[in-house]
């Protein structure tokens, strides 16, 4: 097999793993972000404090450190993760923590009249949050969330540190065998750039689709 044939076929396998990581961590991190934001704004003191603490902790640690703690330190406490799930967990927690700040800001920016009107109709707090507040806050937070997700796509490469055979790990491995860094890393870079572009376009489409007159982020 020629260099290119074997390189591309291995790289594709790695790419699939990367896509698997993202397919789980992107939606899960968005949900975590929403959940943390709601917990901080609407939770009682205890819940709000726990959520704030979680966000402060995750934002205070380099992602690498979080990842290594999950993979190497937690087993000492009897909590085991496979390399794949350690990476996915770290990415969800880190991205979710950052995303929650965009959502929290967006919730805070919604006029209090929206909440009063919901209450006046007889909505419960939960109904108000899910039907009135979050649909508006999510739209406002979307550009920020997009940012975090593009970032997540790029730092999914850190999964190589715990031995996940994803895109970057394969490229790095291949380079150590063949030492053709220009071909190997520029191809890899192109794939990441491709994914980031697809995500950007996809989220822009979503933004257009969810667009409502008067709710645009200016």
């Amino acid at each position, binding site marked *: 097999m020629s260099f290119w044939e074997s390189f591309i076929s291995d790289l594709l396998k790695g790419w699939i793993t990367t896509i698997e990581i993202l397919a789980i961590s992107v939606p899960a991190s968005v949900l975590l972000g929403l959940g943390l934001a709601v917990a901080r704004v609407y939770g009682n003191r205890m819940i709000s404090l726990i959520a704030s603490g979680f966000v402060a902790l995750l934002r205070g640690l380099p992602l690498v450190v979080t990842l290594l703690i999950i993979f190497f330190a937690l087993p000492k406490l009897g909590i085991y993760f496979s390399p794949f799930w350690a990476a996915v967990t770290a990415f969800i927690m880190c991205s979710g923590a950052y995303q929650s700040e965009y959502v929290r800001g967006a919730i805070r920016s919604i006029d209090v009249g929206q909440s009063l009107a919901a*209450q*006046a*109709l007889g909505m419960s707090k939960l109904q108000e949050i899910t039907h009135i507040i979050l649909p508006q806050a999510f739209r406002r937070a979307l550009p920020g969330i997009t940012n975090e997700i593009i970032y997540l796509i790029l730092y999914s490469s850190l999964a190589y540190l715990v031995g996940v055979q994803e895109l970057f790990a394969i490229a790095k491995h291949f380079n150590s065998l063949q030492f053709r860094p220009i071909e190997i890393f520029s191809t890899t870079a192109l794939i990441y750039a491709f994914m980031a572009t697809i995500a950007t376009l996809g989220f822009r489409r979503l933004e257009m689709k969810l667009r409502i007159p008067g709710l645009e982020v200016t």
Partner: protein
Amino acid sequence: MPDDDIVLKVEDLYKSYGKIAVLKGISFEVRRGETKIICGPSGSGKSTLLRCLNLLTRPDKGRIWLEGEDITNRNVDINKVRQKIGFVFQEFNLFNHLTALKNVSIGLEVVKKMKKEEAHRIALEMLKKVGLSEHAHKYPAELSGGQKQRVAIARALAMNPAVIFYDEPTSALDPQLIGEVLEVMKALAREKVTSVVVTHEMGFAQTVGDELLFMCDGKIVERGPPMEIIRKPKCEETKKFFQRIHELYARETR
């Protein structure tokens, strides 16, 4: 409470924010089909009173009965109570992410758990009633202030409330848009929709108001038929207030 005809009864209501007493012993009754007007200088506690009445703000003392039920009782389900009270805000407070139709139907769908088709049918009927069925698909940002307020009235009506509270419903509107909102409110008053209206629109008060309560400094200082109070106020504060209103509206004689 024996009298079936009384929709709302308020007894000795008190509310303070910190050391500032906003309501100092408010009592009144609203009969079925009645339009009650509340007016008074700003800071007299009118908005606080309305918000206490549907428990958006908890009164410190006093009792409120809605259709015979003491809603100040802690065991009462506030959300159930609020379904029976329509509330129209000064700033409209339409849900910005929903069309006019959805704004009116969401209470029916989410709160009253009505089927979507049924809720939309009622919502459309209500929008028709306020003259906006052609604008059903528009978002709040695409409507004028007057149209927004009419949607807000339709939203309150859709829930088939026992009483509707209006909190200065025309104060945030440009003068040329006030008329369309007042027309809708007048039509409803003539249909005997029970309502409590905080307003400075004296024309409206005189045409459809059954009783006017004049509030000053957290108390009702004068009450009676709107025409009488507006033309011959007895109390000093009331005199001063209407003097100013008359001066303000002198050019647009009604």
